[in-house]
């Protein structure tokens, strides 16, 4: 074999060895176990904090509201739809029985007209919703900004929840 070919083979061998060493050093430990990615990243993705709980954890304590809600049209709605994420409240509010809750545990109480309008305002896109054979879903639509805005006797501004109980509309 000519000398220059031997030298070339040597140079190639050095390059390949260098590549293997660098690959070993630079590659993350779990890379390639399941595919072209770090297998550990799957576990890391499960570590994020939760904010929403499940409906059952609300009704464990708020039994009266559940019995209210089961009779009304809002029986399918979960508490967090209106009140916002409540995992912290569900976990820690028990410790504050007969005491005042700290601000971070108090959930949002929607009562303004715009809160009801999010689902119930007039919109042509909502009209086609009909009774389904499997699930009954239908939303009652009113012109929220014109529907009984003031009390006819006292002339005071009215909120939706002054007449309609949101738990049992």
């Amino acid at each position, binding site marked *: 074999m000519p000398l220059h070919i031997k030298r070339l083979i040597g140079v190639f061998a050095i390059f390949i060895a260098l590549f293997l060493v660098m690959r070993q050093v630079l590659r993350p430990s779990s890379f390639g176990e399941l595919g072209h990615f770090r297998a550990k990243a799957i576990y890391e993705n499960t570590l994020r904090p939760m904010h929403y709980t499940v409906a059952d954890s609300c009704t464990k304590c708020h039994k009266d509201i559940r019995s209210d809600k089961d009779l009304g049209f809002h029986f399918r709605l979960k508490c967090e739809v209106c009140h916002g994420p409540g995992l912290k409240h569900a976990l820690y509010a028990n410790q504050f029985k007969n005491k005042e809750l700290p601000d971070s545990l108090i959930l949002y109480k929607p009562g303004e007209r715009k809160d009801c309008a999010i689902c119930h305002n007039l*919109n*042509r896109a909502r009209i086609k919703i009909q009774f389904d054979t499997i699930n009954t879903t239908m939303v009652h639509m009113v012109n929220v900004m014109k529907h009984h805005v003031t009390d006819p006797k006292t002339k005071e501004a009215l909120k939706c929840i002054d007449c309609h109980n949101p738990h049992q509309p």
Partner: protein
Amino acid sequence: MNEDTIKLSRRNFFKAGTVLASGVAIASTLAPYDGLLFAAEAPGAKGKWYGIGIDINKCIGCGKCANACKQENNVPKDPFYFRSWVEQYTIKNDGSILVESPNGGIDGFKQSVPDNDIYKSFFVPKMCNHCAKSPCTQVCPVGATFETEEGIVLVDENYCIGCRYCVQACPYGCRYIHPEKGTVDKCTLCFHRLKKGLQPACFEICPTEARIFGDLNDPKSKLNYFLKNHNCMVIKPHLNTGSKLFYNALTPEVR
């Protein structure tokens, strides 16, 4: 025809035949390794294979899903960053199409077109399609985004270099660059909730149960029941992304 041309064509015939035969042989030996083309295994694999169903007929456009997604996953509150959002399609009598999504639908929708001009109008909730042959994972130069065995497309935040290739590759516009982290962020189908046996936040919160979530491999799952009983379709089927987000009552206007 003289003798020469016959000789030549016979030689060409053997040449072409050899090339064809060797090509077939090579392709058939490589066939078992076509898994390299797709990161996740195709449907029919064992275990869970998650899919999503959305009933457009039931969506009332309350935007609670978009809001829940932002709260659950700490998505920036600015109106440019969404993992999940709702669009309001309005088709006018003259045939023109108007698509609106003010703040992703979180603050509710208003119909900007007078009722007399509307032919029809509907809401379309959008989110990551969790494609089985996702274009976004194929373009990643460092392997920072991948499909899990359950068919969920995830991002490795610690490995992403923020090159934005995947943002451009996604045909559904479901990825964004997180302004603080500088890495890409997308719907994880609330992977942290799934692993605890809970539903993703947007499915948990939907007031009309327009969103159905389930295992496509389980013939008794709610999702398979939904798919059997409705005319379901994916968005942009011609792109062959293997999308697993099925819409009932999807019309061709939706892109």
